[in-house]
């Protein structure tokens, strides 16, 4: 089984790295928006994808193409992300190629699901929030605990 762990750099990534232990027997591959993050998991393959945000639609589209290439070439069985736009792309495109997908919304979003998290809801087979009060029918998110 091949698992793609993907997120933007910074806090999203720090949270994602705390979930590695859930995939003990799988082949792990990583992707993020900071090239130097290849340093983090040197025994595994790492893919750099250019950063983007909603404010620049062109960069956002380029990021989507880069994620498409990555998912097309690697064909992960599972895609897991903590956000943000790179993670949303990975879930959408992952679904096209029959991956099972996990969205875990950043713990920074304690009052509502993140913007990309709301969009990710329908592409996530497992849709998690890290705040119990955000789980339930309103958000469609499940709470199972947090990374801290």
């Amino acid at each position, binding site marked *: 089984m091949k698992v793609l762990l993907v997120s933007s750099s910074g806090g999203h990534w720090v949270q994602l790295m*705390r979930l590695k*232990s859930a995939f003990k027997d799988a082949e792990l591959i990583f992707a993020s928006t900071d090239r130097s993050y290849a340093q983090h998991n040197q025994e595994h393959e790492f893919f750099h994808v250019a950063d983007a945000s909603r404010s620049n639609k062109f960069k956002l589209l380029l990021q989507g193409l880069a994620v498409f290439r990555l998912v097309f070439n690697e064909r992960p*069985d*599972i895609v897991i992300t903590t956000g943000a736009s790179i993670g949303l792309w990975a879930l959408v495109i992952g679904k096209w190629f029959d991956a099972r997908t996990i969205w875990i919304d950043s713990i920074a979003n*304690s009052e509502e699901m993140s913007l990309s998290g709301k969009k990710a809801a329908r592409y996530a*087979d497992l849709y998690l929030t890290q705040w119990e009060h955000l789980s339930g029918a309103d958000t469609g998110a499940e709470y199972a605990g947090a990374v801290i």
Partner: protein
Amino acid sequence: MIFLTVGTQLPFERLVRAVDMWASRHPDIEVFAQIGDTKYEPKNMKWVRLLDPKCYNDLLSQAAVVVGHVGMGTIITGVEYGVPLVLMPRQVALGEHRNDHQIASAKQFAKLSGVSIVNNSEQLELEMDRVFSLPKCGDETDARKLSVSQTLIERIERFVAQSS
């Protein structure tokens, strides 16, 4: 050494200026800053735009105090290393972020020992003076409490098992 980090995503002019001002009054104390895309270039401390992960972790773990925004990377890494954190939430009203989730996070994480939240430059300078004058001893932070919850790992493991 004091380490200032404003995260990898957005500039944070107000915080970088405030720390630079503090540094100008404390020339004997080394301050190092990772300022990202912040336009203001500090005059009273050493700075870079972006550190690679190894340098970042080295500096953060050696710091007497870490000053930063209320970003989860800063909070988790800082608390893991047991370094006192002085954090200022970004405000949408000042053009510092896309929404005010950092203000909400500030309320949630102010409860952790070793984390102080400040809302403006004056509070920041007072808090830096206070935290920097504390002796570094004992287990002052919640470092050991910040482990990933086992129920979350188990939930993901169950999902993986169902997927294979």
